[in-house]
């Protein structure tokens, strides 16, 4: 039997820090100083009161002046201490300057001690027995009272007590009285005992401060941790809300989608189906869920193929788009659908489910087929009779069949010209249709553009002659190679040249230029002396059925499709078309193509 291995929580030595040691020593010093100063008012007032009582008791002696002097000294010292206390209270740098404040406090303690030491040393020998006892008692009291006041810093206490006791001890030792000399021996022991107690208390205070800091730090850490936790909780809640909202949105998308949406399990069983799927296949969601998709949605003959596709989808885990398949509805009708399949993969790279979206394209395919059939019919059935009509008229008009009467010739010429117009229109419409449906294929080849321009001029001279317009190049054209579809480029040139000829005044020249321009391109320009392009027509000149004035169609022929076809053809060859010139001063149509190295 396998027993679950329980990993014991391991705490390394480095992690278990004694928090008492981690407190900042500067802050502890500052705390000690604050503690000392907080007791200062009590010390000042107490010391002053005891001094006042002492001065009153000792006034009856030989050295009244010295008592008065001492009392004055006490008043000054009291004022100085009060000043020190006031200075500390007002200081803004209690932490940074803690050491300095401690030093001053030490000096003040020593001064107070020394003042009492002076009192002991001067007044003890000069007074009578009773007052000597009073003095000794006061001095002992002061030494003892100093312990709680100064014990936070034992050296300060040591200085204070030394200030009081050392002069007094000296006086006792040198007084000449055996008892006093013996007391003088006890006093240092008393001093050492008191300093020892102060030292111990100092340690206790220090521990207290450290603990307080450690606790403060713990509290701070805990607060920070708590805040972080709270923040994370807020973020988590927000994330949960967002996920929930996304989920709702997704569900709504599927619910309202006009596209059939299924979820399949990896074995190919339907997990869910949206209302559009129900409508498309005629089954309710409840009828479909749990059943294999192959049994429900596909014709029986296609099942093996579908299963094979499904297996390869689950294996590859790659989404599939635009898959056209034959499907069956509940009523047995066969439809064609376009499917997108998206496997959902978990972090372990296993397929959890597959989202399958489908769209009925039966009608779309039928429409496409009908459009193609129509285009094909238009192409053949209209061109065949036109071949006969235009061919017959051409033969008559060419005169090979014999002389024709002038009026008759005029009419047959009109008939031929209009037959040609009809043919042009059909060709243009077919071109537009091919371009729109993406069925126009170009056959690009590397060719000399100058040569092609010359060829186009030769082809269109006859047409231009009809308008009494001359086509010419501006000098010898440069040899420039481009990669383009020859037939289609000739179509573009024919369009531009015939437009230029149609709109030029009789007797004028249409000039064609060819120049290299920046960016490795070549530009062909067709310049005419026509009326120019009206301002309000400029925006839609490359649009379909665009003619500045519908009366032109009747006057000059043309379908209004030519330039839009030219534009698309040039774009397909990586070029562009444009024009320049002002109304009333002729126009230049130009196109650019990338040069072939």
């Amino acid at each position: 039997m396998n027993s679950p291995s329980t990993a014991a929580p391991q705490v390394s030595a480095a992690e278990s820090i004694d928090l008492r040691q981690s407190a900042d020593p500067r802050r502890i010093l500052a705390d000690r100083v604050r503690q000392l100063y907080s007791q200062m008012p009590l010390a000042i007032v107490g010391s002053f009161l005891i001094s006042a009582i002492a001065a009153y008791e000792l006034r009856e002696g030989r050295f009244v002046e010295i008592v008065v002097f001492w009392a004055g000294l006490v008043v000054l010292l009291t004022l100085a201490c009060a000043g020190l206390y006031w200075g500390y209270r007002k200081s803004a740098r209690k932490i940074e300057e803690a050491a300095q404040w401690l030093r001053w406090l030490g000096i003040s303690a020593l001064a107070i001690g020394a003042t009492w030491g002076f009192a002991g040393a001067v007044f003890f020998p000069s007074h009578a027995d009773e007052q000597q006892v009073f003095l000794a008692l006061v001095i002992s009291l002061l030494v003892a009272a100093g312990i709680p006041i100064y014990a936070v810093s034992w050296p300060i206490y040591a200085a204070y007590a030394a200030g009081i006791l050392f002069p007094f001890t000296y006086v006792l030792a040198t007084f000449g009285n055996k008892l006093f000399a013996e007391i003088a021996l006890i006093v240092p022991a008393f001093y050492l005992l008191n300093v020892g107690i102060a030292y111990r208390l100092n340690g206790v205070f220090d521990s207290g401060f450290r603990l307080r800091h450690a606790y403060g730090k713990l509290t701070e850490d805990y607060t920070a941790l708590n805040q972080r936790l709270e923040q994370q909780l807020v973020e988590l809640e927000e994330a949960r809300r967002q996920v929930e909202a996304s989920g709702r949105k997704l569900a709504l998308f599927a619910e309202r989608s006009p596209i059939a949406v299924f979820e399949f399990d990896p074995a190919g069983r339907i997990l869910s189906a949206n209302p559009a799927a129900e409508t498309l296949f005629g089954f309710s969601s409840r009828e479909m869920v749990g059943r294999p998709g192959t049994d429900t949605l596909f014709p029986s003959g296609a099942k093996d193929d579908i299963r094979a596709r499904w297996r390869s989808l689950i294996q590859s885990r790659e989404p599939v788009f635009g898959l056209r398949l034959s499907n069956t509805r509940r009523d047995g009708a066969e439809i064609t659908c376009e499917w997108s399949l998206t496997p959902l993969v978990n972090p372990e790279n296993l397929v959890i489910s597959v989202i399958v979206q489908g769209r009925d394209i039966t009608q779309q395919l039928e429409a496409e087929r009908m459009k193609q059939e129509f285009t094909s019919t238009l192409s053949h059935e209209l061109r065949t009779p036109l071949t006969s009509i235009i061919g017959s008229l051409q033969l008559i008009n060419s005169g090979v069949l014999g002389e024709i009467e002038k009026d008759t010739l005029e009419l047959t010429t009109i008939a031929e010209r209009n037959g040609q117009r009809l043919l042009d229109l059909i060709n243009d419409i077919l071109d537009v249709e091919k371009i729109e449906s993406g069925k126009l294929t170009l056959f690009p080849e590397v060719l000399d553009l100058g040569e092609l321009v010359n060829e186009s001029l030769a082809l269109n001279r006859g047409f231009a002659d009809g308008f009494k317009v001359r086509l010419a190049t501006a000098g010898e054209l440069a040899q420039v190679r481009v990669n383009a579809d020859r037939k289609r480029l000739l179509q573009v040139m024919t369009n531009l040249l015939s437009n230029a000829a149609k709109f030029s005044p009789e007797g004028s020249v249409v000039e064609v230029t060819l120049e290299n321009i920046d960016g490795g391109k070549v530009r062909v320009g067709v310049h005419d002396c026509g009326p120019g392009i009206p301002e309000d027509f400029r925006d839609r000149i490359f649009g379909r059925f665009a003619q500045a004035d519908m009366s032109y169609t009747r006057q000059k022929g043309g379908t209004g499709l030519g330039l839009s076809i030219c534009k698309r053809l040039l774009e397909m060859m990586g070029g562009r078309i444009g024009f320049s010139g002002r109304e009333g001063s002729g126009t230049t149509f130009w196109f650019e193509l990338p040069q072939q190295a």
Partner: protein
Amino acid sequence: MPAQALNRICYVEDDEDIQRIVRMSLERVGKMTVEVVGDPLVAIDRIIAFKPDLVMLDWMMPGMDGPTLYRKMLETPETKSMPVVFITAKASQRELDELRKLGAAGTISKPFSPKDLPEQLRAIWQALP
């Protein structure tokens, strides 16, 4: 380029109007001798009998379309080396390329100009090996 000038043309076309126009164009403008065949199913025999320099085939015809007839000609020893030009109104570029690969001499698209037709045929003729 063939040694002799282009003279004898056989044209297989079901549309009688176009038959007449092409005949007039080639005879009057081009001064050629023309044999027109209306039924593609009897075309092979008529071509063999007429012995043309060049055969013109319409693309769409009832009974048998131009490309099928051309494939039949290629299978017939007497006609397999004759140059063939297709006259068509609807062939896609892919179909034309396919026929070129099979050996068709050229294609002329409908509507053609009867004035220029003889010239176009002579150009194709002269381009032959």
